[in-house]
């Protein structure tokens, strides 16, 4: 999304909901990502190893799913360089082949003399609604 489509701070309200995003942890794409980052942790590419550790499938690296969280918020705001801070908690593993649903809303809108910012809470869930990851993304406005 381009800069011209940027939401204005004044047009955002606490409680605003962002469009949901559904993503599948596609095997071919994720394994290509592993090659790109030269992943060495077998938990992220070796199914037998993952199962020996008690996981039902290859566990998708948190940093991969991390990529989609600021993107969701930046796409909504319309500015790909607007995120100032991200806090993220990995609650449950995300498995290769699974679908995830990202839901987000504006939980706080603040301003002081110098700065204006919003905090968006992003919940990543599986298709049954079980929580996988929670993040708080802070977006700054000039």
């Amino acid at each position, binding site marked *: 999304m381009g800069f011209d489509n940027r939401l204005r701070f004044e047009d955002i309200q606490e409680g605003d909901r962002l469009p949901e995003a559904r993503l599948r942890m596609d095997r071919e794409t994720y394994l290509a990502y592993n090659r790109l*980052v030269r992943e060495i942790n077998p938990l992220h590419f070796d199914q037998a190893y993952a199962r020996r550790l008690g996981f039902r499938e290859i566990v998708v690296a948190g940093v991969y799913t*991390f*990529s989609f969280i600021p993107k969701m918020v930046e796409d909504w705001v319309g500015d*790909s*360089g607007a995120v100032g*801070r991200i806090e*993220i908690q990995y609650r449950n593993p995300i498995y290769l082949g699974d679908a995830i649903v990202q839901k987000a809303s504006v939980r706080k809108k603040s301003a002081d003399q110098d700065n204006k910012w919003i905090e968006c809470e992003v919940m990543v869930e599986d298709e049954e609604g079980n929580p996988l990851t929670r993040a708080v993304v802070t977006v700054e406005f000039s």
Partner: protein
Amino acid sequence: MDETKTGSAQAFQAKLQEVVDAIGVKTLPVDLDLLKEYCRLTGHDFAHCQARDLLPTGFLMTFTSPIFSEMFLAFFVKLPKLIKGVIHTASQVEFFGPLRLGAGPYREKLAIRNLEEKSGKKGNYWAVDFEVSLMDPEDRKIVSDVHQFFLRV
């Protein structure tokens, strides 16, 4: 060394510190091919990044991640039997400036920020906060990326 920590915490932290020190400062690659493939795999708009001279927010985080793999591999090689498992539980990333495509090379440095001894249902573990700092070519810190791991012992 933190004087308030127990002897075992100080000893464990000293061992971790040796591994962290050995990793040193890394240079991060930022080239167009890498960025193009990252954008393809994560749904980012490569042409838009190029036009605005911006790196996607997750891009550098993706390429700082292997420093942790290197660190944990070193733990298992240099400190055999000390750590039985690693769980990544949380992270906080703070950006102090824009991530520019043309501003590289960026450099990253790893540090231990906090270490606490914990006990749970499955035994004892250490909660350790590691910080990856990203510096631009002028040595300005542009990203602080703090990760919390539970290290089972």
